[in-house]
């Protein structure tokens, strides 16, 4: 992920500092303080009302949201008033920062709190702190560990997707007619919604009585082509559908990489008498490594969120063989209304993902460096 590369060139625009008068600064500070007071007052009133300490309050927390919006605007205006030119620059970044912080930080911490409660929407007791019970439950939940193991298989399937996508990108990069048609056709599966794909492919084409895939399989000698009844076949069927949707994504990235390669290199290899096979492995493939790694890492990050297709086609069956972590937690929420436990699973999964992706990024950058420096 090129997080850092565009930053290599230092941002250069000079500060045109204009003097900001003291009264203007005071006005800005006053505005921010006032808005903060309003926000704090509304929050305090609402907390007291929610805990039945006072009788007067708002019906819901919506006013707190408006107060936060107001406070954000005041903060922006205040920045410009106090810091002048610098404030105007901060104004570019502020909306995105405030939005993301409000939408992510609070829910994440709130989620941590939920994760340690025995909150179940279908019971009348309300939530109660239950310490490490959810963690113990998680450690003993064989379905969850099974889902986690499935994620390993699904992530490994990304390598197969990558190989196919590379082949397709090479085909599209060759001297062919009707390139535009093939590009549009190949990209099409990526555009379709996974839910629609679940029906189109999973529930009708792969349907065991009338689906064309089943008919084809019968002709090829598979007597009872049931795609979703035995564990490994079902897993492969889900992988096939998932690949069908996502191969175009990898392909587009690799194709862009191929088109950016200097033409002279492969020409030179050809002149030197290299076979296409040699020229691919010794020229094209090494040069494509950085793009490949970016594509694979991005794809793995998206693969870790895989849920829609599994939820809609198999719902994890047979016996959890196709479950992803997300689809399993979705069922914990949906069917068992077990909010506390489901959130604990989700937070645990998040920790695993963060560790895994961090290691992956570290390993990838080290590997690329070693490979390109030798």
């Amino acid at each position, binding site marked *: 992920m090129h*997080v850092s590369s*565009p*930053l290599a*060139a*230092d*941002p*250069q625009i*000079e500060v*045109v500092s204009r003097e900001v008068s003291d009264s203007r600064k005071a006005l800005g500070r006053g505005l921010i303080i006032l808005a903060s007071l309003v926000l704090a007052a509304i929050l305090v009133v609402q907390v007291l009302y929610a805990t039945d300490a006072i009788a007067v309050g708002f019906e819901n*927390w*919506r006013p*707190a949201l408006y107060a936060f919006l107001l406070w954000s605007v005041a903060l922006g205006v205040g920045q410009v008033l106090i810091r002048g030119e610098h404030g105007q*620059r901060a104004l*570019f*970044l502020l*909306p995105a*920062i405030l*939005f993301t912080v409000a*939408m*992510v930080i*609070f*829910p994440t911490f709130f989620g941590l709190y*939920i994760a340690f409660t025995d909150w179940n929407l279908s019971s009348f007791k309300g939530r109660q702190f239950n310490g490490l019970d959810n963690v113990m439950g998680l450690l003993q939940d064989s379905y969850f560990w099974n889902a986690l193991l499935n994620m390993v298989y699904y992530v490994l399937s990304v390598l197969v997707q990558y190989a196919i996508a590379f082949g397709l990108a090479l085909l599209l990069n060759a001297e062919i007619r009707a390139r535009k048609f*093939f590009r549009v056709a*190949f*990209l*099409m*599966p990526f*555009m*379709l*919604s*996974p*839910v*629609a*794909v*679940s029906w189109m492919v999973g*529930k*009708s*084409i792969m349907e065991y009585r009338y689906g*064309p895939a089943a*008919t084809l399989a019968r002709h090829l000698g598979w007597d009872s082509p049931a795609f979703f009844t035995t564990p490994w076949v079902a897993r492969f069927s889900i992988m096939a559908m998932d690949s*069908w949707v996502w191969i175009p994504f990898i392909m*587009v*990235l690799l194709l862009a*990489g191929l088109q*950016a390669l200097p033409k002279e290199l492969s020409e030179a290899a050809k002149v030197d008498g290299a076979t296409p096979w040699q020229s691919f492995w010794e020229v094209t493939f090494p040069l494509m490594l950085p*793009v490949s790694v*970016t594509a694979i890492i991005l794809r793995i990050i998206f693969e*870790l*969120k895989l*849920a*829609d297709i599994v*939820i*809609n086609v198999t719902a994890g069956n047979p016996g959890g063989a196709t479950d992803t*972590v*997300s689809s399993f937690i979705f069922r914990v929420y949906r069917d068992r209304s077990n*909010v506390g436990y489901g*959130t604990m699973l*989700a*937070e645990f999964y998040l920790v695993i993902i963060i560790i895994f992706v961090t290691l992956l990024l570290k390993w990838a950058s080290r590997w690329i460096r070693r490979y390109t420096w030798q």
Partner: protein
Amino acid sequence: MATDAIALEQVRDDTPVRHAGFLSSRVLIYGALLLWAFISLFPIYWTVTTSFKVAVNVTQGHMVPWVDFQPDWKGWRSLGLSPDTIGETSTVRDEFLKRFENSILASVGASILAVVIGSLAAYGLSRFQYRFGPWRNKDISFFFLSQLILPPVVLAMPFLVLYKELALLDTKIGLILVYTLMVLPIVIWIMRDQFDTIPQELEQAALVDGCTVWGAFLRIVLPIALPGMVAAFILSVVLCWNEYFFAALLTSTDAKTLPVMVASQTGSQGINWWSMAALSTAAIAPLVLIGLFLERYIVKGLTAGAVK
């Protein structure tokens, strides 16, 4: 280039053996291309044709309209979208149109919001140096990008509770906010890449002429960055249109989107293939159109920043 290639081939192809090799490699390439085009397009073809089938065509495995079977409006009639029912009132059609409208509002609204605040942030990160405590530009960029890793399932429950308290559950605004959060990292990534390719001299000249930073941004940089914004917008619309997880959890009656409607239909066992196919066709039609006509923007959006 083209003439070079032809000349090269003529030199190479002077012997019959070479010629045969060249021909067979062509056959292989086009064979592979056609095979994958078939794999990519067959499910779409299947869905569209199935929406015009009746029961016997499905069970007999008929494939080609007018040759195998006579197209019938049955599937579309059950949606209230066939020529003979289009004038009449139909509850299914009303339901469908409402979901369709919700999907459009949610995905377009979220994409506009994300492109606006994402472009601003991307421009700031591309041009100025920020310091926020120990955080520099690099860390702020990473903070935004790291949101990509967050799986929806982690945020789902807290959002459900939060939205309940804020009275945002089952509202389009609530959905728009979640979707904006979902596509914001991608938009910032694309726009950063876009702004980095625009030379800074342009704005510097404007600043010297007495423009403010915002004036220079709005009047000079924005028009140049428009293609990138369109790419980011279209990619966001596609991603939001297809989103299922949050929509399934956070909406119930009012704000339900099209994927949730499609999914709820697949769940029921007795559903007819033709009506399901008609519904799927209608749900994917806008995406197929976007794919046909705006493919290059999708590609531009996907490849931004990935290839350097």
